[in-house]
């Protein structure tokens, strides 16, 4: 069992957890991930290793509640335990001095991009960041991101903070205005990464994305995570998770992500119902006592 040492609320839907996992902390590198299971009945969920501390034997996970499994994880508190934390999995990020690097994050991607931006900065790169969220309440780590960025732009879909609009607008402007952008890094929802890929493609600027396909084992034995690339089919869990955004067949990837939509909905409803029943049962007990 893997104990949660610390929990921090980053936004309504995003929680940070420091988890005791000595065998992962010892080997973890930026860009790698773990497979996490909450209980015996839970599915195996891939989560990026947002940070790690070899001495404290912990890793940091940042979890966005988007469906049943991640919402259930977000409800856990310090002292609770995960049934499985296995890893580190996937290829570590290859950090180099490229010159000027544009880092783009959406939603929970902020937390996942931060350690990469930090390392890129340490390697001597100039960092421009674009952060996109739906609304101001979903923004977190603004100062932290600022601390590793030479320039930072924030967009909100509803205009409640920073610039109104989506990340690809400032991205396109920057690409048109500046000739010095050597590399683009993007982490966020598949649809966002797809449009970033389309935006940078005509400029021919190498663009790295971290793909979030559906996984089961995370070790290369099921093929659930496979994506089509110009270099043939690849397993995201062992060949990735980072890929050249211009080589990915985005439509195929997004169609595969959508495959269990009905089941995901059913799982969420089943869980919500169970939570209500549990709460009601607890209420009855209190009255009885």
């Amino acid at each position, binding site marked *: 069992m893997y104990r949660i040492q610390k929990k921090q609320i980053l936004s309504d839907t995003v929680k940070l957890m420091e988890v005791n996992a000595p*065998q*992962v902390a*010892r*080997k973890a590198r930026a860009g790698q991930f773990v497979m996490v*299971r909450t209980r015996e*009945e*839970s*599915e*195996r969920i891939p989560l990026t290793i947002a940070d790690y501390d070899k001495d404290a034997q912990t890793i940091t996970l940042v979890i966005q509640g988007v469906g*049943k*499994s991640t919402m259930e994880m977000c409800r856990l508190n310090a002292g609770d335990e995960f*049934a*499985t*934390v*296995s*890893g*580190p*999995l996937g290829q570590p990020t290859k950090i180099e001095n490229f010159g000027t690097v544009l880092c783009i994050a959406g939603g929970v991607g902020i937390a996942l991009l931060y350690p990469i931006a930090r390392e890129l900065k340490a390697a001597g790169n100039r960092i421009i960041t674009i952060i996109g969220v739906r609304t101001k309440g979903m923004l977190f780590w603004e100062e932290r991101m600022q601390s590793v960025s030479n320039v930072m732009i924030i967009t909100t879909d509803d205009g409640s903070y920073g610039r109104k609009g989506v990340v690809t607008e400032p991205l396109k402007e920057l690409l048109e205005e500046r000739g010095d952008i050597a590399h683009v890094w993007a982490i966020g929802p598949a649809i966002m990464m797809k449009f970033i890929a389309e935006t940078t493609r005509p400029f021919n600027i190498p663009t790295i994305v971290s793909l979030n396909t559906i996984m*089961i*084992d995370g*070790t*290369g*034995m*099921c*093929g*659930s995570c*496979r*994506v*089509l690339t110009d270099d043939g*089919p690849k397993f995201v869990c*062992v060949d990735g998770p980072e890929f050249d955004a211009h080589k990915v*067949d985005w*439509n*195929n990837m997004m*169609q*595969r992500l*959508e*495959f*269990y939509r009905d*089941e*995901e909905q*059913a*799982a969420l409803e*089943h*869980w919500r119902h169970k939570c209500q029943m549990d709460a009601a049962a607890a209420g009855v007990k209190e009255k009885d006592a």
Partner: protein
Amino acid sequence: MPKKIIIPKKTQMLGQAPADRINNFNEVTWGYTEEQAMAEAGRCMECARPGCIEGCPVNINIPGFIKLVAEGDFRAAVNLVKETNALPAITGRVCPQEGQCEGLCALGKKHEPVGIGNLERFVADWEALQGNLHVPIIAPATGKKVAVAGSGPAGLTVAAELARSGHSVTVFEALHEAGGVLAYGIPEFRLPKAIVRREVEFVCSLGVRLVRDFIVGNTATVDELLEEFDAVFLGTGAGLPWFLGIAGENLAGVYSANEYLTRSNLMKAYRFPEYDTPIAHGRRVITIGGGNVAMDAARTALRLGAQESIIVYRRTRNEMPARLEEIRHAEEEGIVFELLTTPVAFHGADGRVTEAECIRNKLGKPDASGRSRPVPVSNSNFCIAADIVVIAVGQSPSPLIHRTTPDIDIGRAGAVAVDEKTMKTSKKGVFAGGDVATGGATVILAMGQAKIASRAIAEYLRTGEW
């Protein structure tokens, strides 16, 4: 020897009727009763030169244990089996007996062979029912430490053998559950998971430490393990699923058999939403392949509610590598067989698979495997509608360990190269056996290689000589 009255037919195990069993995941067959077992044992002719022993990869004293069954001394029978085979409850159920022990049974020349596998299963199940598993003697501690990567039949066998000889053994398993294919691949209706767990617990009762969620190569490399352990055994299996490399293979709804079966068996998707992992419930499911894996997938599809479950296989029934019993059970359950057929493309709508385009074959000259080669018949293309496709055409060892330990030589088809007399790899202190060394094979072969490796590891630990 007194002449026996020959009973031509094997005693059939009772079990669930096909119409019932396709609605649940419970075991199909129930095994022999004591009376049935003694009757079946009575069919054995106690041959002077028994072919059956030769056919068994671990050379169980088959007439010996069968005689004890016939006499009703089940305790002695199971002990005799366990002298050479630690997992009889499993092999009795999953060995391809018709190609091994039963294939060489003298009775089988004219009649049906003795039900050796059924009898082996019977004695093992009988022992489990008695509750008091007899714990073998463990030799005094040697102070030597061995790391075993993988908890499939190969890893479990090496762990048990070495623990008995007093070595300190740690098994590292990548998944959250031990057992290898026995846990994630072979379905509950063919091999109840309680049996696998019982065997894993038995191995742990010998003092073996089991560490789950530990991916050798990632969580620690083989070189890092060698800093702490005196020897390493790789029993990591052949987990990398093969695909066909044809158009449409990445459509949603196209599964590898590993994914389909892992979702159902390991993650218990058949109990969704009580268990969180989803699996698609197809109405028409096509499985590509003709081995045990394909039978397991096609029969799982039925149990998940498919109205039609179709096996597409490129040769004929005679060439199918699956166990005969599985093919028979699949037929009884109404699985449709499209034989001499090869898929050439999958087509879909909105990114989801809707049909498999196939081509017919005729049988040609035998190929390297000795089986007739399928030759495509031109212009015979036709389509089979499907909402799920499961690809079960084989698997090879994962490159995970090799990527981090390049000095372990790789031989044919991604398998770790070993000296078959010792199961030594090219790297000092590292041994390998089972599917990782052979490519996808069988449980009993994995155990046989594990035995050879155990002896060589013990020798290496004693002498330090490579």
